[in-house]
């Protein structure tokens, strides 16, 4: 009799255990979401992001080539649009600045600020060849990448005209755009299967990867990427010019594109959180939602508040730091609140709940 009772309890416990298994809170469904979120980070966010980057870098290169052949202001405008459009993608890709982009320094190679005006002027005034190999060989990154292109397309005061672009500048900007294109192609390839296949390190997280021995390590790397860009915008890119009220420190000043850059950085981080780039996928948000809806709501709300707060800045950032200080402060406060939540609550969530 006693053993039957025991057996009954044992069976009941098993049943209860199997019921709980179906529940995402502790069971295998949560593990499935983990698996899917890592896979989607690689296949829906990271690689498609870099794929779009290389496509848009190619479009910019074509637009600049067209401008060189037919130097009209309409073609100059088209090149400017292509530059801005490429920036949208790049700034969003900065939502995950880890892996080859960091290890192989694609970021400083293409997005160094400030531009070295003196060396740029000396270079253009010299007889130094300006082919793409010559550009790649330059030992100063402040002469390469997005911002020198921006400088040539817009001019120092933002008043460039197609007729005002010299032959040397044309050669230079063409090679710069080719360099940018080749960097984007290499970056894409570094993640893609058949290339460096960095994505596989993440896909192997918790399954033999030395870089990510546990799945938790992959999610923490993803979190650090999101957090780093939110902090960089709020505490660096915005705060420093704001505190010093020095428009010279603002990035992308020739095009007046800074606020757009900032907003796209944060959108990029939100994309990472939601496991999307263009297509929707499964992100960290679904893991959080499975166990703590309130936290997911809080994170998404703080992301949205931060992203929407940029709308209140109506002037280019280099002017806004002087004349729209309250609006700038509001954005920085929203970013600080977002960073704080990611750094404490989301980090604690990952550490407590992702244990494999």
């Amino acid at each position, binding site marked *: 009799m006693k053993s039957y009772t025991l057996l009954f309890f044992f069976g009941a416990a098993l049943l209860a255990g199997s019921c709980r298994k179906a529940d995402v809170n502790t069971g295998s469904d949560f593990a499935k979401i983990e698996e899917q979120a890592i896979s989607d980070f690689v296949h829906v966010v990271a690689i498609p992001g870099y794929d779009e980057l290389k496509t848009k870098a190619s479009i910019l290169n074509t637009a600049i080539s067209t401008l060189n052949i037919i130097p009209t202001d309409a073609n100059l405008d088209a090149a400017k649009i292509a530059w801005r459009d490429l920036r949208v993608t790049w700034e969003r890709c900065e939502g995950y600045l*880890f892996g*080859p982009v*960091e*290890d*192989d*320094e694609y970021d*400083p*190679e293409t997005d*160094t*600020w*400030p*531009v*070295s*005006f*003196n*060396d740029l002027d*000396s*270079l253009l005034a*010299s007889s*130094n060849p300006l082919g793409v190999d010559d550009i790649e060989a*330059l*030992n*100063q*990154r*402040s*002469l390469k990448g997005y911002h020198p292109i921006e400088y040539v397309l817009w001019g120092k005061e933002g008043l460039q005209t197609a007729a005002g672009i010299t032959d040397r500048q044309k050669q230079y900007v063409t090679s710069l755009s080719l360099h940018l294109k080749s960097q984007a192609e290499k970056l894409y390839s570094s993640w893609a299967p058949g290339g460096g296949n960095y994505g596989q390190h993440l896909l192997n997280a918790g399954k033999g990867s*030395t*870089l990510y021995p546990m799945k938790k*390590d992959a999610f*923490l*790397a993803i979190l*650090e990427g999101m957090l*780093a860009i939110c902090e960089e915008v709020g*505490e*660096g890119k915005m*705060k*420093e010019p704001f505190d010093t009220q*020095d428009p*010279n*420190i603002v990035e992308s000043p020739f095009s007046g594109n800074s606020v757009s850059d900032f907003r796209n950085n944060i959108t990029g981080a939100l994309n990472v959180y939601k496991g999307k780039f263009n297509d929707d996928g499964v992100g960290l948000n679904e893991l959080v939602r499975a166990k703590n809806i309130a936290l997911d709501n809080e994170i998404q709300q703080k992301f949205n508040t931060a992203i929407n707060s940029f709308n209140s800045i109506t002037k280019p950032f280099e002017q806004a730091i002087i004349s729209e200080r309250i609006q700038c402060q509001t954005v920085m406060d929203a970013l600080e609140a977002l960073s704080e939540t990611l750094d404490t609550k989301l980090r604690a969530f990952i550490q407590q709940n992702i244990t494999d």
Partner: protein
Amino acid sequence: MRIRKIYWITAILLLPAVFMMCRKASEFDESQYDPRLSGGEATVFDETSKAFGHQVPGLSSHDEHVHEVGDGAVEKTFVTAPAPINSGLGPIFSNVSCISCHHNDGKGNPTAGLVNSSLLIRLSVPGSDAHGGPLAVDGYGLQLQDVAVFGVQPEAKINITYTENPFTFPDGETASLRNPTYTLLNPYKPLPGNLMMSPRMAPPFFGLGLIQSIPESTILAFADENDADGDGISGKANYVYDPYLQKTMIGRFGLKANTATILTQVAGAYNQDMGVTNYVFPKESSFGQSQLDSHVDDPEIADSILNAAEFYIRTLAVPARRNVTDLTVQSGENIFRQLNCVGCHKPTIQTGVDLSLKCVSNQRIHPYTDLLLHDMGDGLADGRPDFKADGKEWKTPALWGIGLFEKTNGVPYYLHDGRARTLEEAILWHGGEAEKAKQGFIQLSSTDRKALIKFLKSL
């Protein structure tokens, strides 16, 4: 009578105090401490690529602000003067920003002259200067600047080649040690025949506030210059002249402990690595040379920026250890002790009291260094003395964070010039005072060697 009573009362009152003093003198058992806290209170729990870049906990809001200003400062890309911002690069330099060499606040790549290079070469000729330091090379100074702003000739280019030397363990497993050769190409003026060169790769930034807080007496207590205990390990402190404080002090920073303070280390890097003048080193690195520009703009960074950069580096936390309960890691730690690696790589040190910076003050830390100079044998010798360090001696590098180099750097490199690509290679390069420990490592079973490496990776 009354007096006697007071004596008694005093004696009774003192008794607990005496007991308390006794208790104070005894230490907690090792197991009472959390082994993950490599930096004591100044430890941070992050094992991602950003692990070296966190501020120590508990800074005041003012100190946090200064730390953040310093964080921004070390990321700044300098450009040719005159410029509206970040003016003052070069005219000759090694790289354009602190983080170009110190990747993710850590180490970098053992290449020279490229945009992502982290290796430089110190120069001197035989003899010593008025303060016992190395003797500068006429027209070159004490450090080679192998890059220049557009249109200016660098001092020379550095060429690095490697020869692979295969190594076989007694159990048949193999490794390969790459032996570097450094040559200078296209010097802007003839180099002396008796030139001495020392390659140095950028070391990590973090934990240096704690290192600066270690009492000099603690470091000296590790020293055994004449090997009185006969364990084959001597160890001596470097004493170096600090040009800012204008006095001779114990050396703590730099790969030969040739710098006394973080301030001088940072200011020297601005000046020599980037060509950026500052209040500690107000003269251009090209002073007296043909590359010198004519700008009257020194110092090229504000005093407050140099101070903020110094504070940033002083307040970077140490990453916590991982996998400390793993049995293989624990076995590896045991082997590390048994081979007497701890003879130089001291596991535990107590920092001194620093009232200005609580988080580095009086901390029980695990840097795995004694900060002393040791003869490391011919294989690693640079042949270039640096104050009291001779041509075979190097400072024991701290090992904390060494297991994260793969994360922070993509590809990890070890030793003073990044010649070692794995921790195993790094150990096999040890010689001189570390020869015995290395031989012990070689004789280990493959399982035990792997356990030792796994322990190092937990740091």
